[in-house]
């Protein structure tokens, strides 16, 4: 079994990095071969160009990065590890969706414009994220948005895939070491159940 972990955080020494490690450990324990993609380290270009946009509905779509596309094609589990900014993923990760999950990889557009899912082989989508700064919104609504992020892949995966969310609330992502540890352990356990 193959798992792809897409990691997005500008700082190499952040809490998100620890989350990444916990995610990889968990998935390895579940028996997956894990490949990690670090978008910031790879200096991924997040902007979808005009040429790509024009090629979108044609029979010869473009994919931004063949290596990434190959990893997506063979993944059984895709996990995203990122900080939540403004209710959504960082622009870098959004760019990964826009450019890598193009027609020919994530879905196919038939002659009639019908979308046929291209990610049926993905059985689980995992979202591992830490919350926005405290005092913004209720825990519930933020967790809901982490789910919504994972669910945006539903059409491409053929509606069957379950989204698993590990979400650290403000209290857990801030300075308290014990709570952080607790959350990391929870993430590790949760990921180990993804088969």
């Amino acid at each position: 079994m193959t798992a792809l972990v897409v990691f997005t955080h500008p700082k190499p020494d952040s809490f998100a990095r620890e989350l990444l490690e916990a995610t990889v450990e968990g998935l390895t324990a579940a028996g997956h071969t894990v490949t990690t993609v670090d978008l910031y380290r790879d200096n991924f270009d997040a902007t979808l160009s005009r040429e790509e946009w024009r090629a979108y509905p044609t029979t010869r779509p473009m994919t931004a990065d063949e290596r990434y596309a190959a990893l997506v094609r063979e993944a059984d589990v895709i996990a995203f590890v990122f900080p939540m900014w403004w209710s959504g993923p960082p622009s870098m990760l959004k760019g990964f969706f826009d450019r890598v999950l193009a027609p020919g990889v994530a879905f196919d557009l038939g002659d009639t414009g019908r979308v046929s899912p291209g990610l049926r082989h993905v059985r689980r989508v995992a979202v591992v994220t830490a919350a926005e700064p405290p005092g913004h919104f209720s825990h519930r609504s933020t967790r809901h948005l982490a789910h919504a992020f994972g669910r945006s892949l539903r059409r491409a995966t053929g509606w069957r895939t379950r989204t698993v969310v590990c979400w650290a609330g403000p209290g857990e992502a801030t300075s308290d070491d014990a709570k952080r540890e607790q959350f990391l352990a929870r993430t590790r356990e949760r990921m180990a159940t993804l088969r």
Partner: protein
Amino acid sequence: MSRKVLLVYAHPDATSYSAALRDLVMRIATERGAEIRLHDLYERGFSPVLSANEWTLRGAAPDAKPHLAPYFEDVDWCDTLVFIYPTWWSGQPAVLKGWIDRVLANGVAWNLDDTSGHAMPALRKVTRIVAITTHGRSRTVNRLCGRAGRATIMRSVRRLCSWRCRARWIALYSLDRSTRFERDRFMQRVERLLQRTL
């Protein structure tokens, strides 16, 4: 009082439907006597990526990021925010998400409160938000896939503005299969909305 409109527009193609919407908004704003500034993110070659350096400076004053100063100035100037973009994967194109990540910074859109650690709203002047977007697929599919992009504007950006800010969200669904009639009708809806808002 004439409105000060900041129009943030993101679409890679100048011949697209979104570009037509942009021109419509520019025309109506001018007709209504509003001042308008345009951030055409693709044309400006705006880099969406919040760098490690900017991440380190996220709590710093805006002076620490001189390369973004013209953007900060426009955000500080406006009292109406208009977003025009196509919805891709339930959300804003990366370049627009990058604008939100980078330009709505500390000291511009929010102030960090030292005692509570909360981000306090700083766009007090902004009393109108209009988001105009197009979806390739139907309303049903978009509901089932979640509406994460809507939350970014209607929840996160809205929160930074004046407490009496009116936020309006207007979307055209099934653009890929739409007819000329449907697209024109949507243009009229946008026009009516802007007549009321500006």
